[in-house]
């Protein structure tokens, strides 16, 4: 293996894969980046076994071949090198010399055979999506996935692909986020994707890229330009969330998002660290906030709202509400309710976007 590459190309390639390489690992080869010199250029790959990223950057290849090198050292070297062409040459199966100007390094790697092979995902017949659309879906939904490990399905984000739309849904069993965007073509599929993989998509692909998405039995692959991302899929089926989305909420309040968030934050100061329980009382043209924490104290606040329906008192985890408000794309939001023990919804008001978005939050039991 022998090739010459510019420092910038090397840094770009490493930057793409380095984030997929685990900082701590029990399998030494996973701390390495795989370098493959082919006629197309240099392919760099990294994986933590859950997610794999690979990208190809142009280079002048004199002799093909492959080797793995410690990712962190390589990144550090690339950063410190002077500008100019960098020459890589394999000396034996796991020893590489790197030269740039008068700087010379010899790095010990591991044979490429030890590097795990990538999942076989075929991209023929792949779905196509604008990266910007996927970013929007991920950016508004992934936060709601569970971080607790007892129900692995809820750790994932459900991605529904339909002939006329794409939808993402995530929930931790206490709150849920869902977004639909119109789409054209493609077949029907339900994928449960780890948020970590979606995070890589957001990081690696620019909004204007066209992404191809393909799946095998238990993997999903994304491709745009010379960059590929693979991830394990989480095995389904995803819980029947449609059934828990309330259809008959007959009370609705429209509030200013920033004012509501500010009031919630004020209340949280006095809410218990553990449950963040606050009480909201809607009646007439106002919502009253109140919180009482034994051993600490209490607080009240009030905001004007447009409210239709019978008066209602309901308890929430303030953190869940605040988080949902953070992702709401409009200045005003609409909340709907049925009863103090039933699901509430939050939606943007007057969002000028083809997408439709809603979040749902389960109340906390109130005690009187």
């Amino acid at each position, binding site marked *: 293996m022998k090739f010459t590459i510019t420092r910038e190309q090397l840094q770009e390639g490493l930057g793409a894969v380095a984030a997929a390489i685990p900082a701590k690992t029990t399998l030494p080869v996973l701390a390495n980046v795989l370098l493959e010199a082919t006629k197309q250029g240099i392919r760099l790959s990294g994986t933590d076994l859950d997610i794999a990223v690979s990208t190809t950057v142009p280079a002048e290849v004199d002799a093909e071949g492959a080797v793995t090198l410690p990712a962190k050292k390589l990144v550090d070297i690339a950063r410190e090198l002077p500008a100019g062409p960098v020459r890589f040459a394999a000396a034996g199966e796991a020893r590489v010399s790197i030269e740039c100007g008068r700087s010379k390094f010899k790095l010990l790697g591991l044979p490429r055979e030890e590097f795990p092979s990538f999942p076989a995902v075929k991209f023929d017949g792949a779905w196509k999506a604008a990266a910007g659309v996927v970013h929007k879906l991920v950016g508004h939904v992934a936060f709601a996935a569970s*971080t*607790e*490990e*007892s129900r692995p399905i809820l750790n994932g984000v459900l991605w529904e692909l339909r002939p006329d739309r794409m939808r993402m849904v995530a*929930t931790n*069993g*206490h*709150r*849920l986020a869902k977004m639909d965007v119109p789409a054209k073509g493609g077949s029907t599929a339900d994928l449960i994707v780890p948020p970590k993989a979606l995070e890589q998509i957001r990081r690696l692909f620019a909004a204007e890229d066209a992404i191809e998405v393909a799946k095998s039995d238990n993997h999903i692959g994304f491709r745009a330009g010379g960059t590929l991302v693979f991830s394990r899929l989480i095995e389904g089926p995803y*819980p029947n*969330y449609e059934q*828990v989305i309330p259809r008959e909420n007959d009370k609705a309040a429209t509030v200013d998002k920033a004012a509501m968030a500010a009031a919630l934050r004020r209340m949280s100061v006095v809410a*218990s*660290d*553990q*449950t963040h*329980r606050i009480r909201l009382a809607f009646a007439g043209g106002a919502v009253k906030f109140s919180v009482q924490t*034994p*051993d600490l104290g209490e607080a009240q606040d009030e905001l004007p709202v447009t409210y239709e329906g019978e008066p209602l008192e309901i*308890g929430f*985890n303030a953190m869940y509400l605040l988080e949902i408000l953070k992702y709401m794309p409009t200045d005003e939001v609409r909340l709907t309710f049925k009863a103090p*023990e039933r*699901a509430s919804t939050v939606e943007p008001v007057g969002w000028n976007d083809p997408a439709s978005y809603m979040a*749902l939050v*389960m*109340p*906390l*039991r109130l*005690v*009187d």
Partner: protein
Amino acid sequence: MTAKIAVLAPRVADQIAAGEVVERPASVVKELVENALDAGAGAIRVAIENGGRTLIRVSDDGDGMGREDAELALARHATSKIRDPADLIGVATFGFRGEALPAIASVARFELETSPDGRAGTRIGVVGGKRDAVADVVRQRGTTVTVRALFFNTPARRKFLRAQATETRAVVEVLTVLALTRPDVAFTLTSDDRSLIDVPPAAGQLERVRALWGAGLADTLLPVAHCEGPLEVRGFAQRPAQARPAGRKGYVFVRGRPIRDPFILRAGEAGYRSTIAPGDRPSLILFLDLPGDAVDVNVHPAKLEVRFREKFFVEQVVEEAVRRALGPLAAAAPLGVGGLGPGIGGAWADVGAVAPGGPPGELFPREPLTPDTRPPAPLLQVFDTYLLFQTDSGVAIVDQHSAHERVLYETVMRQLSGDGAPAQRLLLPLTVEFTPPELDAIETQRELLRRVGYEIEPFSGRTVVVHTAPNPHPRFDAARCLQELVADLAGGRFGGWANRLERFAATFACRAAIKAGQRLELEEMRELVGRLLTATLPAHDVHGRPTIVQLPKEELERRFGRS
């Protein structure tokens, strides 16, 4: 007709009195040593032979007596310690009845040698209550009482004496207790020429404890110092994690007087609620001080009991005093106690030492660690189980599960007795399957389950559906916690807990807490440690294990040769 009633001859009266005061050799030692202490002795030597049957000798270097006093001392109701009933209130001496010496002398071959000045001395012999000789002797200042052939003239009593080893043990016990009350006095005890106790004058009670029982016990003790109204409680309570089911020491002193009071000890143990494994008995050494008129010391022939005017109040304050002793972070076990190596653990060991001549207010000069709700960075998690951080005086190592258990236990106790925890309604209700006994447990504990946050309804067959769940931390697994909690309740785990609420809270806390092996975010660690430090009993979990182990800075310095 001659009268049927006769006033008893003094000798008979003395023997009857002896029946109450002098039960066994240990009671003789107790009376004689108390007399020596009352006489201001600085060193007291006790020798016994054959468990005290053959010989008991108590020598002191106290005030001694002149001839006239010595003769009077042996008369019934002769005492130098009180004059009229009013003096009984708040009496500060051990003796006040003027009964002990004549009683002992009436049931033994008795000899008193005493000198008030180290020149002229008196020897008086008494055999079975009959004075046989008064003679001049030359001796040092002080008094020596020799009691031979105890109960030689009351065979019935003698028959009740136990094996020599048992009687010897009773003597050791009596002297140990008196040695605890007066650490400033030196004590020795020899039994058949074997030395059983030899303690020099000590600077404080803890030093005396160490001299009597060794560092093995002393290093497990936490200082008790609490005052409420007229009552002051001082002394030592054992660290919960070091309490064992057997072999504990339990001593109560009132106004410097050793007493037997199981209720006070029990009140002290109640202070350990929720910090100790059921069945473990912590060592407690408690010195109660209160005004003389709040306690009657003259209610028991051997003065082993006292009567408090407000017994309930006393018990309450004792419980509170012990509870407070367990509170501060310093109550956390230092690294090494329990035998990692010699000398380790000394850093907390002198907390109870009395500075010689220091004002009594500084009996326990060490400040408890001030709980800072924000643990200082860096905060490090190791083995995904322990959290390390720096404190004012060393390195604290926290067990994340135990710590969270303690925090949750305290929260849950409030919720169980108050109006309940905030329960999170579930978007996707859980269905969980149980065995028939578990379903019974759910039925009987339904209200408590509801208060911690579980609203459960029967579903079908053995399955229940869960509509609401607690949410104590982001990694909380509501279904698993419920399964384990119900299995524990059905299986009688924590059965040793007397109180149903406490049992439930302990079980819930154990099951709901963050587990060992869970990696935590920095923010989570901060919150956990912060909440632990503001808990009432941060240093102990609900199973009697420590939540915090301290590596004292002094110990690091010692190890690295910096001290």
